């Protein structure tokens, strides 16, 4: 039951978008529940965009809840903490929730059930500088919970641009997912306070909270919280329900009219966007001194009891599935929504900060797609592309591996929303092709960099050899001269040191000869070919 557009504000429109069946009501009937403590936690050290955190706990060590076990390593990185107290039994490669199905470094934690916290220190953010707060967030392991898991502190570093608007993203446009919805319904005040903190750090003027109009309860609850907290220049705005209206760029466009191009940071345009759950986490980090240890996750799909749970990071997904009660015909599990999620390589992989939803999948709810046919250039995909791309052309170039041309046709503006695949009458897995092309291009750029580096090193080496040759030859000549002079002056026996020097000379001469010889040989090979 969408609320009418009762906002005061003029809303903008972005091109395209689709209206897939939302399937959200199943999991909003019950309130958020806390998942029980599992018998084992596996905490990946790479849960965020960027570099893997460096393990700082030792195997066998007892850790406390909230204790740092992974230190941020590199600029783009974030901290990882023990989600509960217990013993680290292993730090090794384990299967994680990643589309590659490859293992990565994880810390295994056997909880002792005590939930014994490290000392927590609540702070008043107003007493700190933004830079200090940023560091706190980094050490609290706060990353974006909207999906990308990008370290939030980096998004708060202000360089030269004045931020006018902070956008809170409560759109939650993907079907099935309701974790943000439930969070906003139940913990609106904390989200709003988190927003206030983010505003402080960004020195932003206004806060716009965008929520799709298919979530009237969340809108009401958030509006009440804003009113109750007496927040000025903070507005909860109902935005039209259209996928992918929750994409940061799309939401910013709808709320402010500003379009942020690919490769441009939204901060350059005076806007920054955070997910509502991220704001909530920021509030926990400052007001309670708690690092990011758990998050709200929706378990839905082919389960008996679809519902949202607050789950500790590192909990095996199987535990969550058990809470939902997967039906027998379930054949796989999807992390994320049906539009952008991916099938988990195993139901045993641990839950990570980016896990917003687990969908138990069956042939019934996600039937296997019909056969792929060739693209008939009907441009339905272009009609729905929110990035104003020509997906059929991107596909054409990607499938024939013409990466340069795909790039020229703005491949990297694609946000991989999948709207194009959704409408394609030929059922082409378009996004797959774009991901393939993007990662090939990245790999090539990487290779190119390596090649350039190798060229420099090779040239340097050649020069060095040349120089050394020259130097040695000079030295040799000088010595020879000296020796001759000495011989002329009367044969004096050589000192041991002189002898050694001469021997060395001899070998280096031989070496140079050899080098020269091999160069000739190579050249010969070249020309006789």
């Amino acid at each position: 039951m969408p609320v009418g557009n009762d906002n005061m504000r003029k809303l903008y429109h972005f091109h395209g978008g689709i209206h897939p069946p939302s399937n959200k009501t199943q999991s909003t009937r019950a309130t958020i529940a806390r998942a029980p403590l599992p018998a084992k936690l596996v905490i990946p050290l790479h849960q965020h965009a960027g570099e893997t955190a460096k393990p700082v706990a030792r195997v066998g060590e007892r850790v406390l809840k909230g204790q740092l076990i992974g230190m941020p390593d590199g600029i783009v990185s974030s901290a990882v903490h023990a989600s509960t107290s217990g013993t680290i039994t292993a730090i090794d490669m384990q299967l994680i929730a990643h589309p590659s199905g490859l293992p990565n470094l994880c810390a295994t934690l056997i909880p002792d059930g005590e939930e014994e916290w490290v000392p927590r220190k609540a702070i008043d953010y107003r007493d700190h500088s933004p830079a200090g707060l940023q560091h706190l967030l980094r050490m609290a392991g706060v990353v974006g919970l909207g999906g990308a898991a990008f370290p939030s502190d980096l998004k708060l570093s202000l360089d030269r641009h004045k931020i006018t608007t902070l956008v809170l993203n409560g759109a939650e446009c993907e079907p099935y997912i309701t974790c943000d919805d439930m969070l906003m319904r139940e913990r609106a005040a904390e989200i709003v306070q988190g927003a206030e903190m983010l505003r402080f750090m960004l020195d932003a003027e206004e806060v716009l909270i965008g929520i799709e109009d298919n979530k009237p309860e969340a809108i009401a609850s958030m509006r009440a919280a804003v009113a109750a907290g007496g927040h000025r220049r903070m507005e909860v705005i109902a935005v039209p329900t259209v996928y992918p209206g929750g994409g940061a760029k799309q939401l910013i466009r709808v709320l402010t009219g500003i379009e942020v191009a690919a490769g441009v940071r939204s901060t350059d345009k005076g806007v920054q966007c955070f997910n509502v759950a991220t704001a909530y986490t920021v509030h926990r980090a400052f007001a309670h001194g708690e690092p990011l240890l758990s998050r709200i996750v929706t378990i839905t799909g082919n389960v008996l009891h679809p519902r949202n749970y607050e789950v500790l990071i590192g909990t095996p997904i199987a535990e969550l599935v058990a809470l939902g009660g997967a039906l027998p015909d379930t054949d796989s599990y999807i992390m994320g929504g049906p539009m952008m999620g991916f099938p988990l390589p195993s139901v045993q992989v641990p839950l990570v900060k980016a896990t917003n939803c687990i969908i138990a999948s069956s042939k019934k709810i996600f039937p296997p797609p019909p056969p792929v046919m060739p693209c008939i250039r009907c441009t339905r995909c272009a009609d729905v592309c929110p990035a104003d791309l020509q997906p059929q052309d991107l596909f054409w170039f990607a499938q024939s591996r013409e990466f340069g041309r795909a790039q020229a046709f703005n491949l990297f503006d694609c946000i991989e929303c999948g709207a194009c695949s959704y409408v394609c009458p030929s059922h082409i897995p378009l996004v797959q092709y774009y991901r393939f092309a993007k990662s090939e291009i990245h790999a090539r750029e990487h290779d190119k960099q390596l090649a350039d580096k190798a060229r420099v090193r090779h040239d340097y080496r050649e020069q060095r050899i040349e120089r050394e040759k020259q130097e040695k030859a000079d030295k040799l000549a000088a010595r020879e001269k000296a020796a001759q002079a000495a011989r002329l002056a009367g044969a004096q026996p050589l000192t041991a040191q002189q002898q050694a020097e001469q021997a060395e000379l001899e070998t280096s001469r031989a070496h140079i000869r050899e080098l020269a010889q091999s160069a000739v040989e190579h050249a010969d090979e070249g020309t006789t070919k």
Partner: protein
Amino acid sequence: MTEYLLILFGAVFVNNVVMVKILGLCPFMGVSKKLEAAIGMGAATTFVLTLASGSSYLINHYLLGPELSYLTTLSFIVVIAGIVQFTEMVVQKTSPPLYQVLGIYLPLITTNCAVLGVPLLNVQLKHNFMESLVFGFGSALGFTMVMVLFAGMRERMEGADVPAIFKGSAIAMVTAGLMSLSFMGFSGLIK
């Protein structure tokens, strides 16, 4: 004026050198794999062909006359070869960026039949100086146009699921055939 326009229109569309007169096919096939290359070749050819049309008219009219008409081919081609080689050297020196674009195509122009064929047609059609120039320019324009369009098609075709034995020049040839089929639609436009 209208008659020049008609000559121009005729040379570009109705009697297109490549599609209808079947001249200049080697560069048409050879330099149309990439759009940029096709544009470069087209520009170079336009320049040379216009110049060749003008100078061959002068040669034919002032140097040869009817008595020496048996020297037409010989003198035309030698002058064309000279123009081409000269242009190449000058462009290379004076405008390296332009040379980047046209350079490698210039030497190929000497052996583009159209460059000799059009001046010969000029003689055969008894064009005067201006008509020769317009006809030469129009033919070159027509050449450039079809080559650029063809290059566009070939670039797109790179992604097509063309049967293995037709990949490359075979399907290009078939495409040229269908293009020439399409150009037959212009027939009769200028009587």
